[in-house]
């Protein structure tokens, strides 16, 4: 399931503080979120921690590694509403 190192798309686990700040600001802005200045440090610290966890999950999987929400239809599925 896991890819060889040659195929791995890594992401840096510990980007610079400036990069982290820029990332977070772009992502929050894209989603229309305005964090008050007095809360920015706390959110930034939590983001830095989350960002390390995100990095753990990158570069682990090749194309054949499907996510858990790939689903299976049963033949009776479309008959649910038929009476």
């Amino acid at each position: 399931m896991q890819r060889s190192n040659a195929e791995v798309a890594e992401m840096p686990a510990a980007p610079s503080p400036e990069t982290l700040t820029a990332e977070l600001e772009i992502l929050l802005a894209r989603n229309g979120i305005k964090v008050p200045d007095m809360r920015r440090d706390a959110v930034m610290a939590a983001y830095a921690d989350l960002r390390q966890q995100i990095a753990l999950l990158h570069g682990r999987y090749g194309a054949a590694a499907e996510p858990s929400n790939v689903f299976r239809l049963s033949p009776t599925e479309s008959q649910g509403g038929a009476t």
Partner: protein
Amino acid sequence: MDAQDLSIAAMGAALRSHDVTAEQLARDALARVAARDPALHAFVLVTETRALDDARHADQELRAGRDRGPMHGIPYALKDIYDTARIRTTCHSKLRIDHVPDQDSVVAAKLREAGGVLLGKLATHEFAIGGPSFDLPFPPARNPWNTEHVTGGSSSGSGTAVAARMVRMAMGSDTGGSIRGPAAWCGLVGIKPTYGRVSRRGVFPLSWTLDHCGPLTRSVEDAAISLQVLAGHDPQDAASADVPVPDFRAGLERGVGRLRIGVPRAFFATASAATPEVLEAIDRTIALLRDAGAGVEDVQLPDYALFAAAGRVIMAPESFAIHEADMQTRLMDYGEITANRFVLGAAVTAVDYINALRARRELTEAVNAALGRYDALLTASALATAPRFDAPVDSLSSTSPMQTIPFNVTGHPAMSVPVGLAPNGLPLSVQIVGRPFDEAMVFRIGRAVEQITGWEAVKLPIFAA
């Protein structure tokens, strides 16, 4: 003996032998809430009229020969994210402070149908994530073992209400450990059933693919009785599993002889947050299980950090998707902790989320493979005892002392069981994890653990006496 120290089964026997009435039990519980809750803050709403109506109805039915089963006439309470028809359901939040649902959640309806007596709605960390907080419409629940300490969350009031002997059973919800965490820190039994075992319909979601409903109780038997009422297929819950519901009490007293139990020791043994008393409690429990005839050995699972990362990276965007509009327009109406956690969901990309779902598949297969060799797993619930309010921990961070989220990611049934008291007088616990839909085995091992560790003889705190 105090009525609230009777097990659910013993209360039921007393009701059926007419040694006590449901109304007496309800009045006793309401008096206890009135006396203790001003200092503990377990309840955000006490439904006294409803409780007495439920109790009188239960008595009438028993007198008329209609017996609804083991929860008939038993007081209980609901975390305030469970919809209750015509009863305010706030999620402990300013955003839903006036919300009064038209219908019961499936769980509330099942407990009503089973003859339970609803005492009220319980404090929670806001939207089952943000707390403990002092900037919300209601104060945070306090730990009855020491009120300077937190209960754990998010089912904080549920932990307090049961540990303070106000009710024998309270419903919690568990997205990353919100049943098992308060159970661990309040000296209770808390089971997160298999994903799909209990309907989530009518319960305000935190993260659809991680959310589970389950009870917090004083004993494993109480938990088994409660789950018996709650379990079952709900075609209107997309995650609900159409699988048989066994008799959860049938094997409770079978012991652990010849059972095989795997211990993912690497999860907790080298964790930075692990405290010596927790590690000693786990090792003592393992030794006692071996003495009782179980084969217990270490098992290798993927790194704990992967489970924790997958859980958080799944939870963050799912919860943000639920709250996106309010986060954009009413961010300051959320408590600060809640808002700071929810905004991070905006910072998780689609690729991040999909990688977490790929990890979920890998990790679930790894746990299933381990459970192909063992009847159950035993690990830590919490790596430390309950912290003080003035030294809070972030249960979502990578250094969280809670080790519950792996089984939200994989969906396996998992239960926290108390095993003793630490030198600071606060409860210690272990976590038992079973095969999908094999809660009966989890209960069987948990029942043995509460017996062999001597937990049954541990008295609840003086405050709650």
